């Protein structure tokens, strides 16, 4: 089922605004479907796509594969290899506990447990209402602030076990006015 016209978006998503945005990005790359080096921009495109869609579902993977004129397996193989890419959606509030060495020796594992308990979810999971997701990451490079927790773009430093509840408070309160706090934090 090779689609010879790599410009045709797949699966009836032609006018979907997110796909339009992704296509606009891919257009700027001017991919030559025969160029043996064309995959060199694939990882950058996947970064873009994940930023647009929040994650990389199969429809997006297939779309990207067609635009690059490469098998879907190549795209999915790259996605599964790199930690940064996810095929499942994350929460609106993304909590990351740094488990880099500097944070770890300063008690980051107990901070993570504290967040797991406060949110009622395990690391790597999303809360049932889709509002929170909890993950660990390796070193944000702010080791002077260890242990570090990032919530969306905001960095919380020198976090102690037992403080999770307090830190999460304002994100829980915001539940009614969905996401407003998040946008504010990014500014």
């Amino acid at each position: 089922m090779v689609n010879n016209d790599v410009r045709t978006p797949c699966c009836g998503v032609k006018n979907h605004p997110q796909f339009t945005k992704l296509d606009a990005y891919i257009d700027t790359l001017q991919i030559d479907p025969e160029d043996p080096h064309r995959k060199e921009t694939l990882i950058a495109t996947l970064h873009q796509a994940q930023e647009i869609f929040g994650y990389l579902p199969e429809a997006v993977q297939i779309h990207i594969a067609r635009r690059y004129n490469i098998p879907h397996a190549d795209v999915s193989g790259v996605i599964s290899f790199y930690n940064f890419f996810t095929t499942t959606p994350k929460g609106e509030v993304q909590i990351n506990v740094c488990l880099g060495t500097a944070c770890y020796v300063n008690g980051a594992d107990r901070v993570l447990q504290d967040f797991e308990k406060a949110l009622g979810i395990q690391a790597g999971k999303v809360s049932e209402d889709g509002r929170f997701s909890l993950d660990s990451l390796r070193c944000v490079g702010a080791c002077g602030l260890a242990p570090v927790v990032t919530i969306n773009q905001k960095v919380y430093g020198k976090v102690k076990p037992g403080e999770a509840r307090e830190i999460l408070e304002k994100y829980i309160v915001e539940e009614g006015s969905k996401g407003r706090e998040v946008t504010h934090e990014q500014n």
Partner: protein
Amino acid sequence: MNKIETPTQLMELYDQYKSLLSARLGTEITDETLVILVCGGTGCQSSESERIVENFKQLIAAHGLDGRVHVSITGCFGFCEKGPIVKVFPGNVFYVQVKPEDASEIFEQHILQGKKVGRLLYEEPTTNTKSETADDIPFYKRQLRVALRNCGLINPEKIEEYLGAGGYQALSRVLLSMTPQQVIEEMKKSGLRGRGGAGFLTGKKWEFASRFESEEKYVICNADEGDPGAFMDRSIMEGDSHSVIEGMIIAGYAIGAHQGYIYIRAEYPLAVKRLQIALSQARKYGFLGENILGSGFSFDIQIRLGAGAFVCGEETALIHSLQGLRGEPTTKPPFPAESGLWGKPTVVNNVETLANVPVIFQKGADWFRSLGTETSKGTKVFALAGKVANVGLVEVPMGTTLREIIYDIGGGIKDGAEFKAAQTGGPSGGCIPRAFLDTPIDYESLSAIGSMMGSGGMIIMSDRDCMVNIARFYLEFTVEESCGRCTPCRIGNKRMLEILTDITEGRGSEEDLVELQALAETIVDSSLCGLGQTAPNPVLSTMKYFMDEYEAHVKEKRCPAGVCQKLLHYIILPEKCIGCTSCSRGCPVGAITGSVKQVHTIDESKCIKCGVCMNRCKFGAIIRQ
């Protein structure tokens, strides 16, 4: 600004811009202007240093002092423990832990009235004396900043300041007065070795790549700093992007490449942004592109993002990732110098290595050789973190001892604890015990004691850290990051992790220790790439120096440092318990019984060792053993 086409034009710009920095360098005191520098490294930015800059800007504008007082963001000052940091020139006054709202106090007292704000000056903890200038601070006294020469001095987003600091003059000298062969000879003579970990002679690497005939060759900057707890490369890229770019162009000229790539972690958005700014400025000024400085040599650089895979720090894996593939390593030879990106000769150099290159051509190979030890020349940047009092970025000449780094610069161990070990080299390195505190650090001495230089992460551990648990922590990391291509690394490390988990959870036996040792040695011998070959190092080095801790775990089911939760026992001291019921109300599993005003007891069979009871007890009646 027009393109610079001759070295004379470059020198004219240098003369024009050097005064930008003279106040900061103390070479020329101008009464007219005051300069406020605010650290814009990741740590300080996380603590809202950008708002400090904004507040200063508003104050300057409100007082109509626009021409007289300059405020600028700069790269990392290195003293992350005390961030955010603000420096005021002239005087090199060093303010620590500045909050956005402190800007007005600094402005009104220092800028308007010329009086230092004592409250925000650095206080030496042992003597309680305030440091009037940055030069008085012990953290900086022992350091020698070569790779970090411009970090915290220039605004990384302004090429004018880099030019004012002598930037691109090395490139000009190389392109217009040296042959590629002379460049390689100079590099070899300098003795600069790769700062990414393995320590291969940079000049030799360039020489190999230059010998292979090919129309296309590539220079790759390895900025995939994956070692958790290391942030040297990030700070260089954020604080002095142009020095890395200049180093890459020189490397390109030496080997005959016209295209360079910077492969950088996606986790470093600020570094990516600063590099992008620097690249476009360098193109505008003609340091990148066609016919650089009228020399006839052309070179350009592109940025490529990684996507979170530790193994991509290995050069063959990195090259695969650059090609849009899974970042799996391949066996060497062929080395990238012969067959790298797209099968063409390629040089892969680390960020810190490249940042050293321009200085070598500015000050000469002999000067560089004069620093360091017999086998390891120059300086090394370490990211000092963990249980040390002064967490931060430290650059010292090779041959400096651990004791000097930890005690003289790092201020000793935090919270009055005792030093136990220093971990260098990240997941590939080892733990260095107290006995080697006075070993001069260089590539050879570190590998002789079972660790390695690595990229420069240095995590300090105290008597409150369990070495078995630390080994398990690193193994967990390598198991997660193993790409799965070869069996020893994929399965062997997983087995080691299982054994270590058993030991830390009280299920370990003495036979396990024998097996652990054998497995570790096999994995070192038989893995495909550097990741697998070095993954057992944290286990081997801790077994070598801290066997007593392993034995306590397996024989006595005891964790001497009191870290491994499953081996802990919580006990209520009857003489201190007043029966307030706070502990039993807090216990998540109902393991504590006792009524009001009666001594409580913990049921060991139910206890999950979470420590909540101990935190809740206000009378110190609960202890952990």
